């Protein structure tokens, strides 16, 4: 195990954490407005397909990301209308999105591409270094320059979110909706509008996270390519104690653990591969034990808001 191993491991962690950051931020915005949306897997899946198809049709990965964003918003409006306007159970509708959206994605894929077995591949988004024509040689140059626009956007969003929720009046109002919507309403905050706004942001970010997979990471779309990231993102929000910085650290931690198990599997050390595959899960249990399970999330999460209710 040398310096090369460590640097490549860290670079892999960043690669693997990026889609998680988008999807986790999506959940953070949703929960901060009192909406527990477990449908992230479905939203990311539809975003992944939309990103792939638009990228293929237009040759522009950026338009693909935009399509993923719009697809995520569109699908999440089902969740928003059902849970905000109809006051339906959030967990049930989140689960429904998780079943509905991947099935819809598979259906659209088959309708468009037919039942052919040809592997369709798209061109990925350029990294900053390739766009400006330089070849970064050392670790820091690769870390900072050998990334796509989406990676910079993910980290910029983390900074923006941290400032927005903690340093702006609008952000504090937004959080108030997630904590005690009736009190927020008495202060003149439009709770319903805030919740719909949260759903739009959630759909957009989760869709972008999915689109990242097919416009920046892999050249193909395969059913199931989101591979549980929607559920990991849910854990990351709890891990991160509902703060942008915490969510970032949680995503980097999950990305690091997954990258580590892959690299240790390759190095083998004569141990069964299952030993390495359990690393992310063991690490999760250990960290949860260390940071404790104390509830720190928004108080109105999961509860429907009825304006007339006393």
């Amino acid at each position, binding site marked *: 195990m040398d310096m090369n191993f460590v640097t490549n491991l860290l670079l892999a962690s960043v690669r693997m954490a990026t889609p998680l950051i988008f999807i986790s931020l999506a959940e953070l915005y949703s929960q901060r407005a009192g909406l527990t949306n477990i449908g992230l897997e479905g939203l990311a899946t539809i975003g992944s397909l939309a990103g792939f198809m638009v990228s293929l049709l237009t040759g522009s990965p950026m338009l693909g990301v935009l399509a993923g964003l719009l697809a995520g918003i569109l699908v999440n409006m089902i969740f928003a209308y059902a849970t905000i306007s109809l006051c339906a159970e959030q967990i049930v509708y989140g689960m429904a999105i998780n079943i509905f959206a991947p099935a*819809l994605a598979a259906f659209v894929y088959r309708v468009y591409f037919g039942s052919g077995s040809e592997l369709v591949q798209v061109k990925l988004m350029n990294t900053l270094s390739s766009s400006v024509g330089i070849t970064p040689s050392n670790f820091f140059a690769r870390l900072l320059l050998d990334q796509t626009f989406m990676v910079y956007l993910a980290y910029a969003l983390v900074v923006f979110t941290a400032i927005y929720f903690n340093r702006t009046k609008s952000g504090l109002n937004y959080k108030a909706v997630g904590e005690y919507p009736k009190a927020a309403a008495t202060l003149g905050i439009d709770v319903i509008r805030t919740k719909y706004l949260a759903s739009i942001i959630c759909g957009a970010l989760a869709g972008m996270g999915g689109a990242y997979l097919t416009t920046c990471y892999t050249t193909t779309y395969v059913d199931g390519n989101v591979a549980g990231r929607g559920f990991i993102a849910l854990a990351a929000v709890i891990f991160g104690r509902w703060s942008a910085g915490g969510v970032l650290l949680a995503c980097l931690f999950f990305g690091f653990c997954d990258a580590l198990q892959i690299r240790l599997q390759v190095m083998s050390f004569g141990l069964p*591969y299952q030993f390495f595959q359990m690393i992310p899960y063991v690490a999760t249990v250990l960290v949860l034990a260390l940071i404790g399970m104390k509830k720190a999330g928004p108080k109105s999460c999961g509860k429907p808001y009825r304006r007339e209710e006393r």
Partner: protein
Amino acid sequence: MKRIVSLALALMMTVSLTACAGAAAPAAAPAAAPAESAPAASEAPAAPEAESKDYKVAMICDSSISDGGWGAACYNAMVDAAAANGWETAYSDMIDQSAYYDTIVSYCDLGYDLIYAPGNQYTDAVLQAAEEYPEIAFALLNGGANTPEKAVNGNVTSLLPDANQIGWIAGAMAGLMTESGTIAFIGGMELDTTKAKYQGYAEAAAYVAEKAGKSAKTLDIVYSNSFSASDKGIEFAKAMIDQGADVFFGDASAVDSGARQAIDEANAAAGSVKIYDIAQPADILGQNECIITSQVTDNSSLVGLSMQAVMDGTFGGEVIYGTLQNGALSAGKISDLVPAEVQAQYQEYLEQMINDTFMK
């Protein structure tokens, strides 16, 4: 009003799910399966027999049929065999392990004549369904040699390409082409056939390299635990390249596609193609720059034999082997990246494998 909208939303989701079931929701798969039918009976080539019965085959698969690898090759094998024999086809792909049995029996209930399950992992589900549906034939690609004996109704046939020979075909090329002396193999699930392929790959590469006056060490097998996580393929390949691997082979469907993407990126960064991949089980030379050849398994001939047996009423209780000797296994086209003398040497080794003199 809200109730009406709620009902409309629920109905919309239900209808969508039903429509999608053929591709992604195995429990309801057969509802949509006929829509996936390859040539309709009227469009299909004339059946080789005079009977008016329309035969139908259904494939279940836990990977995607458009994965550019295993799923695609198995699906094409069914379609080709069906076209040759005048059968209708249906499939359900991307099904979870928990839905293997339910999907199979759904097709059984719809009156399909042959259930085609391409993978050792379906053995338990197939045996259970075969016991409950004695009149239906089950073809298990990569099934165990003793699986047909376990079927109480004698209606299961194992189609068994020789996994060790598959490994040899790829390993001989890897041993000849490696310059670093390190080669790699990526597995999807820990299956007996995957382990046998790895074994054959490693031993053939070591043998051939030694004959060429060099060495070929195969990195330990790794498993992605998925056939669809192409991102895992990327990360595995990058990690293996860091360990010096310069020839890759795999048995992991879309994960292999991800590995090829990483290899192409590494070659592009180096400015020349020095890291190679050997594809399987279809000949896909040209799909990626790094592919130097493919190990080809003619699954269609094996599936075709099963169809013929069903039509003849002789199906069941046997193992149909696929080997280099009977032509079911072969090497695909070879890239220009492989020097002419290496190609000639490779052909010699293939001849030895056919003549059963390889490594003897």
